[in-house]
Each structure stands twice: as C-alpha cells, then as structure tokens.
C-alpha cells in the first residue's frame, strides 16, 4: 500500500494502517527530530505526532507528499513541546534549519545556541515588529491569520514582516557559520 492509501485507511480508523505508517516513517522522523531535541523528548514528540496523525488523517490532501505532511505535524508537535519547555527562542531556529538540511548531531545544536541568541538579537529590540512577528509565527507556531489578528495588522503586512525576519536571521546565521568562517577570509 502506498502512503496516500495508508493515510486514507488511517482516516477510516484502521489502526493496522497507522502501525504500518509508523514502521515506515518513524525512523526518519526520529532522526530529523534528534537533530534538535534530546532523545527522551524525541520519543515524546514522536508519540504525540502519531497520535495527531491518528486524529487528523482525514485532513490529508493526497496532492502533497505524505512525508512532507508528516514532517509538518512533527514540526508542530516539536514547536508545541518547545513552547511548553521555555528556551524555545534559541532552539526553534535550529528546527527551522532542519527543514532544509541534514540534522547535525545534538552537540552542534547546543553549540549553535549562542550563535542563535546573537541572530535573534539581529531582529531588533524585543517587542519590535520584526522580532514580535518572528516570535509569534515561529516560536509559537501560529498561522498568518492568528498573528494578523494578534498584532492588529493585515495579513499582507504579517507576511512581509515574516519575510524580513527570515532574511535577517539567515544573514545573521550565515555570518556565524563555522564553515564560512573557516574558509572565506
């Protein structure tokens, strides 16, 4: 059975389909999460992820990729966990970065904390538009509509502020990229 059919089966409350989905996808999801979270938290987040899959399978649209959908859920669960735990502001950018590249080992994630703190401060003062938008969208993982309502600005403004925040973060992170520092002087 391919992934789309499996997820459709999960939507029909077939627990055997969830079991198969788990055995296929839990390993790589765990590997990705491990890049940003300690092992015990990976287990908790992964458990919450698949419970969310069980509850929300009806919302899956087969045009997307199953892997992308699953990772989206895992990301959200990890963000929720980080939000509850506290030092999210430092670890969440690492989670963003995990979207695009291979997860580094956890030591590297921890090392990055100091660099990330510096990158976050590049967004401006706390409470300022860029930093606040970034905090609501990426630390608290809210939707554009929610952030627009919370900040009292149109959705378009939220999107352009988020874009600016990402640009500033990327530039700040690149400046402190060890690979770059080693090479291009």
């Amino acid at each position: 059975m391919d992934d789309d059919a499996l997820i459709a089966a999960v939507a029909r409350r077939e627990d055997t389909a969830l079991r198969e989905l788990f055995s296929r996808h839990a390993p790589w999801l765990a590997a990705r999460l491990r890049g940003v979270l300690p092992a015990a938290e990976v287990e908790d987040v992964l458990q919450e992820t698949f419970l969310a899959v069980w509850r929300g399978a009806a919302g899956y649209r087969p045009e997307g990729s199953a892997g992308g959908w699953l990772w989206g859920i895992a990301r959200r669960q990890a963000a929720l966990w980080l939000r509850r735990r506290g030092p999210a502001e430092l670890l969440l950018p690492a989670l963003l970065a995990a979207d695009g590249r291979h997860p580094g080992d956890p030591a590297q994630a921890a090392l990055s904390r100091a660099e990330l703190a510096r990158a976050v401060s590049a967004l401006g003062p706390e409470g300022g538009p860029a930093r606040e938008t970034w905090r609501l969208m990426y630390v608290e993982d809210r939707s554009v509509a929610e952030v627009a309502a919370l900040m009292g600005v149109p959705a378009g403004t939220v999107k352009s502020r988020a874009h600016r925040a990402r640009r500033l973060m990327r530039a700040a992170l690149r400046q402190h990229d060890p690979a770059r520092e080693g090479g291009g002087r």
Partner: protein
Amino acid sequence: MIGDDDRFGGYQDTGPAPGDVDLDRVWLGVAAQVWRREPGPAERAAGRLLHSPGLARALVTTPSLLLGWVIATVVILLAGVGFTLGTGTPWVALLAPAVAAAGIAYAYGPGIDPAWELSQSMAVSDRMVLLVRALAVFGLNAALGLAASAASGAAAEVTFGWLVPMTAVCALALAAATVTRSPNVGVAAGSAGWVIAILASQAAEGRFTAAITDSFFVLPYLAFAVCCGAVVWYATRIPRGTS
C-alpha cells in the same frame, strides 16, 4: 516487534532511526491510546458504586443484561400485559418469575462462561461477580415486571405479591445452575418449580393465582430462597476440578 524499515525515498533521506531513540516504546505509547476502550456512563457509574472497575466491567458484560436479552424480556412481559387485559388472569405475575429465573441462571457460571476456569483465578472473585450480576438481573426484572404488572391493571397485592415467589424461583434456578454447572438445568429447575407451585396451589385452593396472592406462602418462599442461597454459597466456595 516493529523494526527499522529501509524503504526510503524522497523526504525520507535522513537515514535510520538514531540509536538512542526507542521506537518500540514510542509505538506502545501510541497503541495504548489508539486501542484503548473508553467505558460508557453505566460502567463508570457502576465502577464508582462498586469501588471496582473490574467488577463494573463484569457487570456490564452480563449475558442476560445485554440489549437483546432485555428486549426479549420486555416483549414477553408485554405479551403478558396483553393477555392479562384480555382474559383478566394476571399473566404478568405468572410469567415474570420464570423469565427472571432464566435471566439469573444465564447471568454467570461454568456453563455459560467460556473462560470459566480463568475467571476462578482472578483477584475479583467469581463469587462477587455472580452476586453482583444476579442482583442486577433480579433488580432489572423486578422493575420491568412491576411496570408491566401496573400497566395490566392488576391489583396491588398481585403486583407486589409476586416479588416474593420470584425471589424463591430465582434462588432455585441459581442453586440448580451452580450445583450442576449448567444454566439450562437452572432454567429448567426454576421454571418447573414455579409451574409446580402454581398447579399445586390451584389444586389446593381452586385458583392458580393462589401461588401469588396467598400470604400463607410468604414465609415458606423466603425460607426456601434462603436455603437455595446457602446452596449457592456452598457450591461456589469449593472450586471443583475435574481430574
């Protein structure tokens, strides 16, 4: 159990699970929530009342409390109401004890429970299960019978009068079922005993409702019920094995 699956493609290019993440444990956490059964309101209330979730679960799975059985009981009693209204004879009062006896005999025991020997090794003792189930079945049948009897316009002494013989007949059915380890024998004994009581009282006093209405029988019925109860107690105390 679930092992690493090496079918990857597309998104899944980040390799196998990290060595310090216990995927089996994660799956067990998911399975526990996905597979769990939520007790219904009746079971939860019973659990609080009986201080035992196991006893409550045993109660709500009583064969003669299941919907099909209850519906059959209601149908029989409604027929009794019909006959009573038609003929003037209190059929409900005559039928109800036999129906209740059948329900009690089928509540629990070696003939009816396929996992009987296993049940005897449980912390919630099978005797407690029997007691709770028998009382529940009796109570339900009494309530249904009272309603049917009132609906058929019977006199008060008849309506309440048959509760006493019903107790005796049920006790007889239960005693026979536990001693012979067969619910069918219990039903047969209960029904036969009741028929005999009715016919005997007709022979003695000329009307077969005497078995219900004659207050002379109240004490004998209750004494008989107590004796049968003692038999049930004894029969369930010594678990008998076959060699």
